[in-house]
Every structure is written in structure tokens, then in C-alpha cells.
């Protein structure tokens, strides 16, 4: 499972390189946050955080995670993150117990609000981390989301 995923990512990289060469995509698009694709294949929360550039970030009350504490289905879990930290440059979302914890990273240019909503997949009950880079430093907040079983034929 992990092997084929690695392979898929590698192949993806190849395609990306080709597209670069062909001038189909610009460098800004390919490296939105300057994150290497490998960050998305890290297996632990600590590794994924390091790959993003965060070393033991401090917890901050200025980061608010808005998500239900119980989700009816792990395939779609709504998560909003609001950073009230001045100089917010990026917001990164991680799910600790997913096979690869890094979910998404958003670059926040000046003039864009530190407020992002999206929906993530969660394999099981887990802590969800919001990692914010502001004025060059990393801060974080976390919340547990419980994934429940549902339906009548599963």
C-alpha cells in the first residue's frame, strides 16, 4: 500500500517535471508553499510537521479550529481554520492518525484573510492540527474529531 503510494507520487513528480519543461505550468503553481511533494508522504505527525518546516510549534489561542467534535462519516469532515495571528503567511492542516498526516497547506498572501474552510477525509477518530506560520514563526492548535459508524448494512 505504502509502496504503491510512493510510486504514484514519484510518477506524479515525473509528470510535473514534464509539464514544467513544456511550460504548461509555472513554478508558482507547482510549489505554492515551497513544500516538496515528499511532505505529503510522511507517515507521522512529527515528520510531516518537520517537512513543513515547523519544529515543536507553540500552541496559540489565536488559532481557532471550527469543526464538529463528532463526524457522521469520515469521508467528508468539514473543517474551518481561522488564524487571528498578525502576519499569517500560511495555514496547514494535518490529521494525526491518517496514513499520511499532512492534508493541505494554504498560502495566505497579504490582503487575504486567515480564514479557510474545506472538507477532509479521516480514516478514524483523531486529533486535527492547524499549523499557522506568522511572521516567520509556527504556531498550532488542535481538536479531536470522533468518527462514528453509521447506516444499517455496514
Amino acid at each position, binding site marked *: *500500500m505504502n509502496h*504503491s*503510494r510512493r510510486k*504514484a*507520487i514519484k510518477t*506524479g513528480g515525473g*509528470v*510535473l517535471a*514534464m*509539464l514544467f519543461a513544456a511550460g*504548461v*505550468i509555472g513554478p*508558482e*503553481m*507547482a510549489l*505554492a*508553499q515551497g*513544500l516538496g*511533494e515528499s511532505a*505529503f508522504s510522511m507517515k507521522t505527525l512529527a515528520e510531516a510537521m518537520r517537512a513543513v518546516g515547523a519544529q515543536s510549534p507553540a500552541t496559540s489561542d489565536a488559532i481557532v479550529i471550527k469543526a464538529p467534535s463528532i463526524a457522521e462519516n469520515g*469521508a*467528508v*469532515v*468539514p473543517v*474551518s481554520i481561522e488564524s487571528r495571528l498578525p502576519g499569517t503567511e500560511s495555514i496547514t492542516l494535518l*490529521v494525526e492518525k*491518517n*496514513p*499520511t498526516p*499532512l*492534508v*493541505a*497547506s*494554504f*498560502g*495566505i*498572501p497579504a*490582503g*487575504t*484573510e486567515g*480564514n*479557510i*474552510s*474545506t*472538507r*477532509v*477525509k*479521516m480514516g478514524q477518530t483523531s486529533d486535527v492540527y492547524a499549523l499557522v506560520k506568522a511572521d516567520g514563526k509556527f504556531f498550532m492548535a488542535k481538536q479531536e474529531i470522533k468518527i462514528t459508524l453509521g447506516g444499517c448494512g455496514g
Partner: protein
Amino acid sequence: MADPMRIRATVRDGVVNVKVLMSHEMETGQRKDAAGKLVPAHYIRSVSATYQGKTVLSAQWGPAIAKNPYLEFSFKGGQKGDKVVVTWEDNKGEKRSDEATIS
């Protein structure tokens, strides 16, 4: 060719709120089909939004963003009637750009 995105951009008190729905399978590469074969990973890897040529959001995604992705963000300084352009690109190199007029 992927389906168009649904983009809603509304301005209030000088802040433009953008809501985007994208049509994409977001295959993780870890799911097996009915025959027990691994379905290859296929997911949107990067998203960017521009307003008057300036990037107002850039994102890098892995396959753990939910199928048919939803994204909401806000930026300052947009005008009614102007356009916001959203572009995504997936791990197979497919790209899609759509625009919405700010209302």
C-alpha cells in the same frame, strides 16, 4: 475534460468571500475496487486563485481532501463586477480554470 467548478464570489464591506466546489474523484491510491485491485491515486494537488492577475490564495493538497472538494476563503479589496479566477491541477497533470464575477 473535468466538469466546470461552481464558484460563488460575493463582496461585503470590501471583503470578497469565495466559495468553490470542484468536481474531482480525489482517489487516495489506497482504495481497492470491486475486483480487489488498487485504484491509482488521482487527486488535485494544487489550487490557486487570482484577482486581477494577483494571487489571492495558493494551496497544496494531498489526497485526504474529500471527494468533490469544497474550499472557502476571503480576501480584501475586490470590487463588484470584477472576476476571480480559480485554477486547479491534479497529480496526472490535468488542469482546470474557471472564473466567477463578484456580486
